[in-house]
């Protein structure tokens, strides 16, 4: 009886001893994923709505209108290109929708990594390769993650007061 018990104990501990002898493989160093990696690619229109910021701040309804079925917005797509080093290069808007954004040019993020305080990362659009002539700025209000979806917000201001925003909900069209 005593012998049997000892055998069982030995059998249980054998694998533990084995594991303890193995060297842990921590892998090689990998750079953190940047926003550029997340947002590059071609994004197709899922929906767009116009938000009346004046009405919204005054709690007046309606404060938004869905434009998805209007003005050929369903055919809208935007492609954000990166180079081998994942640096932002050119962008292009395709489709027949009215040009809320300049149809093509260069893009850059205002930061490489998402902020910790929740401030949305912004995409600046430029007409020149040197990225000095800014044409538009959109906020990434929903960052692509597990789902290949992204939400961009274009805000129109007059005298520094935001009065209208356009909220683009986009889905990734191509695999990276």
């Amino acid at each position: 009886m005593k012998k049997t018990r000892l055998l069982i104990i030995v059998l249980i501990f054998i694998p533990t001893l084995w594991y303890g002898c193995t060297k842990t493989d921590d892998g090689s160093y990998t750079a953190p994923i940047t926003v550029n990696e997340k947002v590059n690619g071609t994004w197709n229109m899922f929906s767009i709505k116009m938000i009346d910021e004046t009405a919204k701040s005054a709690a007046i309804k309606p404060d938004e209108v869905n434009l998805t079925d209007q003005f050929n917005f369903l055919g809208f797509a935007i492609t954000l290109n990166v180079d081998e080093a994942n640096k932002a290069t050119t962008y292009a808007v395709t489709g027949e929708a009215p040009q809320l954004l300049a149809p093509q040019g260069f893009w850059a993020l205002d930061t490489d990594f998402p902020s910790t305080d929740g401030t949305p990362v912004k995409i600046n659009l430029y007409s020149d390769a040197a990225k000095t002539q800014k044409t538009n700025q959109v906020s990434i209000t929903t960052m692509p993650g597990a789902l290949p979806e992204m939400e961009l917000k274009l805000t129109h201001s007059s005298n520094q007061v935001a009065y209208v925003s356009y909220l683009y909900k986009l889905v990734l069209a191509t695999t990276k």
Partner: protein
Amino acid sequence: MKKITYSILVTLLFPFAAFSQAQEAGDIYKMYSNPVIYNFDEQVSWYFNLSGTTFAETEDVYIWIWSPSEPDAGNWENSSDFAKLTYVGNMVWRFDLTPTTYFNKTIAEIKASAGFWLRLKDKTGTKQSSVANVPITDFSAFATSGKPFDYYPTKFYLDDPLSIIFNANLIPAFTDAATIHMHAGLNNWDIKQEYQSWLPEIVAKTQLVNMGGGFYRMDIVPRTYFGAPEGYVMSLINFLFVKDNWASTTPDYVIYAPDVPIPADPILSFFPMTISVKDFLVITRQHNTVGQKLTYTVKGGDKTITGAFTGSMDSQKAYIDLIGNFGSMDIPKLALTITDQKAKVIFQGDIPLVKVD
């Protein structure tokens, strides 16, 4: 005070006391006048429906009236011919009179009286109805109401008289009208009685009665006026008034039949509240009339665009691309006009524009 009470009592009870020996024929089932509203110096027809009384169809019926005066006094047992009613049909009798003449009283005296108190009777006074009072529809408040038109009674029916009163003083173009005519239809112009000014009998039929002081009146029984077939359900009357031979018209007016829900007033709204040439303008109009189709014209700088609203009677929308049409212009405003399919202007005004930073 006592005297007044006493005189009212006498007014009401007098016929009971005098003719209590007559057989009671019952209550007058229904009374109405045509026109519904009238000045007391105008001719009017009073209608009495004697259904449910012991009066026989086509029987000779006489009026015995003692207020505001008693024209046939002393003739209870042998009513005068002038007090005789005309049988219309379906147990309805008619009495035509011009109150000031019949009662030999002025308008003011009639107004100050206790009203029209009467019985209906046979010629010899063996049979009498209960005491009745011909209702007077008071329209004195209309003159100062600020309304261009009103109608009486408020509960009107296809087969009953309806009076529409019009205050031409409120429509500047109508103040010097020689004649005013009604151009009208039932149920959104389903059955029309147009003002066909080249047909003399239609000119006469559609002409409003001049009541003086800029007030005009149209008296109709909708079924006969429009020629509505049996079984027709009237839910509304559309009309407008026309000056002379179409020299000018009022806006379109509508009156709704009793129990027909009155649609909400149209609501026109613009989205967003602040806008630039780099945005989209969305115009919404709720509660349109049946068949109403709206179009817009937007003028900015030297460019004009037009388009149609889409949607239903309940809500129609126009989505206007300002970026594509005016995006490159530096302009302070847009001029907008909205019209319907009858070229009626729904809106005309400017849309101010801000500049995007």
